[in-house]
């Protein structure tokens, strides 16, 4: 486990919590309450699992109860046949994992609400099968006399013994979930929740990452089901309903989606509450519904956010007394020293070795339509390797669309884009990122809930995307995996150092100033080791001082052998750093050349300022639309 976690566990409050958990059975009055506590531990495992797909990835999953039921029934049937719990449990986990693949593969590539509907339908099917397939499941009366758990020759008996056994499993589930959160896969999950497209262009295969999360969720639920039947010796279908699935979901959201502590708090509250409010009888469910609405509206980040609010207030009160740490927006933002650019030149670290540098782009007759609107009309251009190439034009001329086609956010209807001989059109953005093309966004898309360092680490992992094997290595905590994590951190720190944000590495990315977020996007893109870097209006919102530093950065990036293509309105920046300038108007390339050539070009002047009156406009639509572009220079 990470060092941060160890430090957390050594705090007195944590030790007190640990002690409380260990002596809990002595304090709980009666068998019924103890059974409730055990059920809470089992629910906790389901909810911690749900946190992967809902908390980290932001997807809705209402199949947790069904997966819990599948795990329970598979275990019950196997152990009734005489198989030991210790063999039935992994088989139950595999069974739920396979079900999650069947359900996830078709739905996870669709719009987000499809998973919600598909999982609800799956829950209904599972419920129907459990009730009606009587010869196997025992129908509504369920299965009885399910064998228990034998541990080192001792068969567990009584709620108290089961409590410690279940506690160990819950702790294991929590520990592994924290380990995943701190890994490359955890960062990818949160990145795609914060911005799916920004995750893709950093090389995150968002569909596969969601699939990993969904499978993890269902396997947690399957294991919980296995534990449930083996400790209660009885199973019936009514528990595995969609209402239960909603309850698991509510536990997570009320506690705090995306937080392990939130999962614990939410599960505890909603395990105890129905019992404590038993006197409300049929009004309980009304109150439950109203409570959900109130909690979601007034505390959307869950009960854990109360604690953060409280400590945040306390912290800001103490901070007021001492001087604020110097976070000067202007001064340390860009310090492009030659030494820092060394990391960009470390070719050996790149997938293609030396040949990785000096790649250009060859764009042939790219056409992109949106309904009837032709945003790019047979655009062809060449970007020479190792140059800075500016794309300019009035608003709506297709510049950003062009970058979106290059990076794979849009798939052009026709044409070809080649990066050092590799065709890019038709590939997913993550594949294009691995081919060596990275970008920043005009409307900033940093991963707000990750730290600055974690943002850049997502980019750094571009060429080593974690799949199933990576997941197993992370769960096992292998030395190789830890070494890789360390390497990602170093690459990310170097990239941050290069753009001058190293001092802010631990800050939440959402807390940075606007210009700093732009630089963070550049660092994140550089960490992918691009051959071609696309910058979409990098100077927007920067003051003259900051844009001057940005110019120095762009030159340093080019000098390191990375080809830069950028869209910009700031004339000083365009003229100051570009080797070549291409001008777009109404989706067409109207001029190209050195900055000086373009500045003197009549078509360009006409596009920006309108045509002189005496000359009749060739194209009335063109003349009407070409209002002067207000420049930010």
């Amino acid at each position: 486990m990470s060092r941060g976690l160890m430090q957390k566990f050594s705090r007195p409050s944590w030790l007190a919590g640990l002690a409380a958990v260990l002596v809990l059975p002595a304090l709980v009055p009666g068998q019924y309450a103890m059974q409730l506590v055990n059920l809470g531990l089992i629910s906790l495992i389901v909810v911690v699992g749900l946190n992967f797909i809902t908390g980290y990835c932001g997807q809705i999953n209402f199949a947790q109860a069904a997966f819990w039921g599948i795990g329970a029934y598979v275990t019950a049937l196997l152990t009734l046949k005489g198989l030991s719990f210790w063999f039935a449990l992994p088989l139950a986990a595999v069974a739920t994992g396979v079900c999650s693949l069947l359900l996830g593969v078709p739905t996870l590539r669709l719009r987000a609400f499809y998973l919600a509907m598909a999982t609800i339908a799956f829950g209904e099917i599972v419920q129907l099968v459990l009730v009606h397939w009587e010869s196997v499941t025992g129908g509504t009366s369920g299965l009885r006399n399910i064998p228990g758990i034998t541990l080192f020759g001792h068969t567990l008996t009584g709620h108290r013994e089961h409590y410690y056994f279940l506690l160990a499993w819950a702790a294991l589930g929590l520990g592994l979930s924290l380990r995943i959160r701190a890994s490359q896969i955890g960062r990818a999950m949160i990145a795609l929740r914060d911005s799916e497209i920004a995750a893709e262009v950093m090389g995150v295969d968002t569909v596969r990452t969601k699939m990993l999360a969904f499978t993890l969720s269902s396997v947690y639920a399957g294991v919980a089901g296995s534990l449930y039947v083996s400790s209660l010796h009885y199973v019936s279908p009514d528990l595995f309903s969609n209402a239960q699935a909603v309850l698991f979901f509510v536990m997570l959201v009320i506690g705090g989606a995306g937080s392990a502590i939130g999962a614990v708090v939410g599960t505890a509250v909603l395990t105890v509450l129905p019992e404590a409010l038993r006197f409300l009888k049929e009004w309980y469910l009304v109150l439950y519904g109203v409570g959900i609405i109130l909690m979601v509206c007034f505390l959307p980040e869950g009960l854990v956010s109360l604690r953060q609010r409280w400590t945040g207030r306390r912290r800001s009160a103490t901070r007021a007394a001492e001087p604020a740490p110097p976070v000067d927006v202007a001064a340390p933002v860009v310090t492009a020293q030659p030494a820092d650019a060394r990391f960009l030149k470390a070719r050996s670290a790149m997938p293609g070795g030396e040949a990785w540098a000096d790649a250009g782009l060859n764009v042939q007759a790219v056409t992109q339509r949106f309904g009837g609107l032709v945003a790019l009309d047979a655009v062809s251009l060449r970007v020479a390797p190792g140059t800075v190439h500016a794309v300019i034009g009035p608003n709506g001329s297709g510049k950003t669309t062009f970058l979106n086609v290059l990076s794979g956010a849009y798939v052009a209807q026709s044409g070809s884009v080649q990066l050092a001989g590799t065709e890019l059109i038709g590939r997913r953005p993550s594949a294009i990122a691995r081919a060596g093309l990275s970008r920043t966004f005009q409307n900033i898309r940093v991963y707000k809930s990750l730290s600055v360092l974690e943002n850049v680490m997502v980019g750094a992992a571009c060429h080593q995307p974690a799949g199933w094997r990576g997941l197993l290595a992370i769960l096992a905590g292998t030395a190789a995996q830890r070494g890789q994590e360390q390497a990602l951190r170093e690459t990310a720190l170097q990239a941050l150092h290069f753009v001058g944000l190293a001092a802010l590495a631990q800050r939440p990315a959402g807390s940075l100033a606007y210009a700093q977020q732009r630089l963070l996007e550049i660092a994140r893109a550089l960490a992918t080791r691009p051959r071609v870097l696309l910058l979409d209006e990098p100077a927007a919102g920067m003051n003259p001082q900051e844009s001057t530093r940005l110019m120095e950065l762009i030159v340093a990036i080019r000098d390191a052998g990375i080809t830069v293509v950028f869209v910009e309105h700031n004339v000083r920046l365009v003229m100051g750093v570009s080797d070549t300038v291409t001008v777009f108007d109404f989706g067409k390339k109207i001029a190209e050349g050195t900055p000086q050539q373009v500045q003197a070009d009549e078509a360009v002047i006409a596009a920006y300022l309108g045509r002189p009156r005496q000359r009749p406009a060739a194209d009335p639509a063109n003349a009407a639309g070409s209002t002067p572009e207000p420049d930010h220079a």
Partner: protein
Amino acid sequence: MLQLAINGLAMGAIYALIALGLLQIFNAVRIVNFAQGQLLMLGAFLGVTTIVQASLPIWLAYLVTFAAMALVGLIFMLVAYYPLRGKPFYLAILTTIAVGIVLENLVLIVFGPLPQSLPSPFGSAQVHLGELVIPQHVLFIFAATAVLLLAQWAFMKHTRFGTMVRATSMDMDMARMVGVSVRTTVAVAFMLGAMLAGAAGLLVAPLFLADPAMGSSLGLKAFIVSVIGGFGNLYGAVLAGLLLGLVETMAAGYLSSDYRDAIAFLLFLGFLFVRPQGLFGEKQSERV
């Protein structure tokens, strides 16, 4: 056989109506309302209150029900959607579920768990066509579905308000900037969605009784129909509704009624696998 088909189509028309209400809301705010079935159930019980308990004339009872449903839609929007716009979408979906839970349990407390009967405006009159016996209420369902579909289409495509709803669904901020009152637009969409659910409730209860628990299964059918029709497509939803009603009734008649609902869900999962864009939807590209 033909008799079975007509029953199936009647059920299908109901599915189509629920889906129309669901899509009315979805097309405005891009949120799938998980309480659509419970809104329908509420409409059915408002019918029980006004027609059976208050013995109002049927036209007045229908009017009162629609007015009440519009009010419910407005409150629904103000409580469960409006505070959450711009927040992670699962929060709004969770609140729609919570509204469903509240409605279902309130009705359960007020009316008790026993199903209640609701008369049709046509009583139990029937039309005889050769050997076929068609209840007039079934013909009423077909007519009402057709009229409501046409009305909804005309409203969305040919009124200023419909344009504002569509603009809001595409880009809420931009719509606001060009002078669309987003709050009013969204409120009207929720009110219409709830009224459509109410209409479906009034139509379905004479066939199957009004049952507090009827909402969840009918609400799920609305999803299924919407997906098969191509999410957001009104005609697609109506055709898919008729199709689902037909397939379900046939399968229940000839195969097994235990798995009647399972057939609908399997059809749904099958579509997700093979043709996620549905019968008439645009191709669902991977959202990047």
